[in-house]
């Protein structure tokens, strides 16, 4: 067996489940309620549902899905703007696949594509740079959404375009940062969480120390966790153990992947090309300095500066993704869930994204 496969070993999973239940019950006995944990990352949300761990722990631990899916937190107006971008003459729009079916106010990228717009799904932003090189007569725009895991790769694409001296490549930046949104959630105080399961992937770039503010300024503990069943469970166990012992700390339970100080090469590249910018989050208005935007000297690669896309205020819909992202409601509390809104006919991004909370509930947690 590959060493890493041990993290999904059935025997170990069963034992780990029992250990988490035991410690959660000890917490419950003392506090008279379940521990409330938020998993920040969308991939954790999916992994919890897919592995059945969330269902198994339903009566012992309250798990709340956080704002960690880049597709879901993109606000409606930005989605509308991206779809409208496809109308620019002689453009090729490039995007990650997850964005294609996200509904804007009136259309989706998928629909725009079937109407004849040149929209291409790429696996990497660097592919879109190659497309720009091959089509000097077209404007190639990459829809740059993502958190700290993805943003360094956007920077790499710009570095490449710069080296090739391309004048027809831009990125439409709607990037999001983890720290500002966690601060916003904690400051708003609408959702009560005892501790955070911190995102394994974003932490590859940020490192463990970037979460110290949680413990120092908010006295909330956190554990960086991996995505395999045993990793999800050990992360939870360590977090509840901290809570149970009234310790506030940030632990790295994904040491074989996440380093203490993250990836310095990636962070340096970020700071070469980007600076902090205000970003609008779905259901949360604009959070100051919660994203990265291109520095002025790289404005030629900035699609927002090159193309003048004006969008109307989006119309109101019954979709409650805004509250889902803030951890205030479960998908089942949305009247559209599994009725008007399904993965085949999604109303909001939380049902479309492969990391969306509504999609996770629909696929793995519905009662038939």
């Amino acid at each position: 067996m590959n060493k890493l496969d041990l993290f999904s070993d059935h025997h170990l999973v069963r034992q780990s489940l029992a250990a988490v239940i035991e410690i959660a019950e000890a917490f419950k006995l003392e506090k008279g309620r379940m521990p409330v944990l938020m998993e920040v990352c969308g991939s954790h949300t999916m992994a919890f549902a897919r592995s059945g761990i969330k269902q198994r722990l339903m009566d012992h631990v309250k798990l709340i899905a956080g704002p960690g899916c880049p597709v879901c937190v993109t606000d409606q107006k930005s989605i509308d703007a991206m779809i409208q971008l496809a109308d620019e003459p002689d453009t090729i729009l490039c995007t990650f696949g997850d964005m294609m079916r996200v509904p804007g106010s009136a259309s989706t990228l998928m629909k725009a594509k079937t109407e004849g717009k040149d929209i291409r799904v790429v696996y990497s932003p660097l592919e879109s740079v190659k497309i720009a090189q091959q089509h000097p007569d077209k404007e190639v725009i990459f829809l740059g959404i993502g958190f700290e895991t993805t943003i360094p790769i956007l920077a790499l694409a710009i570095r490449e375009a710069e080296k090739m001296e391309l004048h027809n490549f831009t990125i439409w930046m709607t990037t999001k940062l983890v720290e500002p949104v966690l601060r916003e959630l904690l400051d708003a105080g609408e959702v009560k969480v005892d501790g955070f399961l911190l995102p394994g992937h974003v932490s590859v770039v940020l490192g463990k120390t970037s979460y110290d503010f949680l413990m120092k300024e908010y006295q909330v503990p956190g554990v960086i966790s991996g995505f395999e069943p045993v990793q999800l469970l050990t992360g939870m166990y360590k977090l509840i153990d901290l809570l149970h012992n009234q310790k506030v700390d940030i632990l790295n339970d994904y040491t074989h992947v996440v380093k203490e100080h993250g990836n310095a090469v990636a962070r340096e590249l970020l700071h070469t090309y980007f600076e902090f910018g205000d970003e609008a989050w779905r259901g949360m208005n604009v959070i100051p300095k919660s994203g990265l935007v291109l520095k002025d000297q790289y404005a030629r690669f900035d699609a927002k500066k090159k193309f003048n896309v004006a969008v109307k205020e989006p119309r109101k819909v019954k979709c409650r993704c805004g509250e889902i992202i803030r951890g205030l409601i479960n998908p089942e509390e949305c009247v559209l869930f599994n009725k008007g809104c399904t993965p085949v006919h999604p109303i909001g991004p939380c049902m479309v994204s492969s990391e969306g909370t509504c999609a996770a509930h629909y696929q793995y947690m519905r009662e038939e």
Partner: protein
Amino acid sequence: MCIGVPAKVLDIQNEEALVDVMGSRMYVGTFFVPEISIGDYVLLHAGQAMTIVNQLFAMESIEEWRNILRE
């Protein structure tokens, strides 16, 4: 849209590595992991190797956990 399974590094040239991801071979960028060497396992995101997986730490964390379970 995130990092998937670990890939094994088979060959390295400039800023690119040939990796094996569960039996299929492909080229990935190595800009973010300049310390990479042949035989390493890396985690990929959007065509880039983002971190080197430390197998030793992986074993240690499993052992540590087994000890907790045995307590």
